[in-house]
């Protein structure tokens, strides 16, 4: 059969597609992201209104992990609440322990000895390393670069081993007590930390080489999710997210606590406030944390690691409890009634890996707080989401969420 040729007219394609576009305009699609979604890093839910690929409106829904930590705190003694602080920002439990202990000690007007302060600084900075390693790892994963996550998680595993040697637990450390620590450093532990840092430094450089100058990563993050300094301050952002917007605000420098003024370190700042700056700030903070830990280990003083004179706040050494009547009674009173904290109210903020973790404690005397409010950095950082996500592309949502590095455990409390 001979081929037959037939002419087909398809008309003006361009004008037809324009007309088709016109038809679609104004149609908004509602998309539900989460609460169980890989890019939400926990149980964050976003109600997204899409116009094509452009995000028109976002409403974050939180509270899926609400456990009522503040209510629980009002019903137990100050020391009994320490394990609950592990579960706020569960990526960096040691830093939460320290912040909480410092808040209660500030209320009691108690100063802990230099050795205790130095150990707490080491704990805080190792916790920051742990948190930022996860933060940059999953951030890379959110932008499609899986390799970095493998590197950082290997390092975190080693950190967990160090935490286990120090506290007996890998995850829920509960290391601090009001007025001191649960125990002194184990023998040889500081050497292990130094060894860990020595091999961590080249890994950080490798992560830097893998991603920071990577063209794809660069294109996906530069100019995306820009937060101006005014917006950042207005929404109460804190931590690396605030500093990436160019606001010089690091409580370790500005209102030093636990002896941070003794150490030399730089506060990295961003200038554009976009996703790429938030990455750069976290990468540099990793290096600065290593610097602080090294100095703290070099200068670590000898001496007691708990406030010896605080007889109504810190329990006496175990050996004395078993041999001396007075210490036995003291320990009994501490366990049953809790550390005796004078009446008053205090608000203490600590620079945690995720931002400013604040404890507002109202005491009416005795061993139980009357009101304990936790100012969670992730809660404040997430409140800017409707503003930042508005107008971005749908594919930018995971990137922006990843760049925020939040934890719902402390957001929902």
């Amino acid at each position, binding site marked *: 059969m001979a081929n037959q040729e037939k002419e087909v007219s398809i008309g003006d394609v361009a004008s037809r597609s324009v007309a088709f576009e016109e038809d679609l305009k104004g149609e908004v699609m509602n998309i539900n992201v989460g609460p169980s979604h890989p890019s939400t890093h926990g149980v964050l839910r976003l109600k997204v209104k899409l116009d094509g690929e452009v995000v028109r409106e976002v409403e974050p829904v939180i*509270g899926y992990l*609400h456990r009522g930590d*503040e209510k629980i705190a009002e019903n*137990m003694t100050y020391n009994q609440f320490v394990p609950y602080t592990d579960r706020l920002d569960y990526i960096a439990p040691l830093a939460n322990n320290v912040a909480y202990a410092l808040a209660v000690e500030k209320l009691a007007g108690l100063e802990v000895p230099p050795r205790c302060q130095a150990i707490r600084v080491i704990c805080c900075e190792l916790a920051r390393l742990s948190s930022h390693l996860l933060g940059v790892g999953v951030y890379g994963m959110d932008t499609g670069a899986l390799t970095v996550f493998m590197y950082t998680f290997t390092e975190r595993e080693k950190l967990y081993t160090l935490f286990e040697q120090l506290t007996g637990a890998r995850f829920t450390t509960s290391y601090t007590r009001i007025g001191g620590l649960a125990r002194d450093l184990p023998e040889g532990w500081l050497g292990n930390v130094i060894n860990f840092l020595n091999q961590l430094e080249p890994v950080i450089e490798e992560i830097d080489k893998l991603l920071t100058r990577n063209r794809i990563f660069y294109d996906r993050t530069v100019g995306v999710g820009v937060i101006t300094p005014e917006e950042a301050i*207005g929404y*109460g952002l804190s931590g690396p997210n605030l500093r990436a917007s160019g606001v010089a605000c690091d409580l370790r420098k*500005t209102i030093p606590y636990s002896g941070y003024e003794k150490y030399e370190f730089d506060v990295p700042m961003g200038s554009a406030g976009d996703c790429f700056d938030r990455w750069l700030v976290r990468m540099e903070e990793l290096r600065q944390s290593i610097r602080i830990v090294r100095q703290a280990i070099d200068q670590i003083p000898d001496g007691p690691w708990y406030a010896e004179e605080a007889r109504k706040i810190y329990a006496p050494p175990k050996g004395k409890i078993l041999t001396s009547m007075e210490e036995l009674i003291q320990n009994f009173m501490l366990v049953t009634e809790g550390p005796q904290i004078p009446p008053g109210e205090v*608000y203490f903020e600590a620079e945690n890996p995720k931002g400013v973790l604040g404890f507002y404690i109202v005491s009416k005397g005795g061993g139980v707080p009357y009101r304990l409010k936790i100012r969670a950095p992730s*809660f404040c950082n997430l*409140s800017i989401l409707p503003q930042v996500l508005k107008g971005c592309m749908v594919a930018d949502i995971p990137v922006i969420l990843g760049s925020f590095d939040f934890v719902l455990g402390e957001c929902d409390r």
Partner: protein
Amino acid sequence: MQDEFLNGLVESYDYLEKRSSVDWPAVNCPPDRLLEFLKMLRDVRGFDMLSDLTAIDNMDELPRFTVVYHLYDTQKHTLIRVASNCPEGEPPTMPTATGLWAGADWHEREAFDMFGIVFSGHPKLTRILMWDGYPHHPLRKDFPLAGKEVDLPAADVALATKEKVRPAPMAGGPFHSTPGGHMSESEPRGNDESWSEKKEKPSG
């Protein structure tokens, strides 16, 4: 220096009262002058960031609810605490600070959720941690630690399963004793024994 600042503040604004504090300068401000005072702190005194907003339930004292603001100065790096008592009556009310700080939005929603404080003028005062339609305000002092029995948020699930949200079995709760009084009476017990193995579970 902090005392000087606080004295100057109380002298300049006669409606303020000093509030006892162990750390930062703290003032009590009447609710009808609150917004004007907060705006002044933000624009004139440089407290440009709302660090925290929360409430206290004073229970037996009057007025019952106090809203507490913590403002941070990002230049001079200092904090101030401003407290304001809600006027008597149910629900307790307070003017909204969302016009001054965008970040006040979520904080006020949380205070509403947990304490039932209505922030008048708030653009969308809905629950944030508990689910929509939850009938109680859990951080009030008269709300038991064990919780209260309420309906499930999803009506269809409730109908199919005949389940309810039940109070958590506290079995006495976290134990501690109250200081003072006779030794024999200070046996460690939970603050909230509204539902233990020995007591019936509270209804409604």
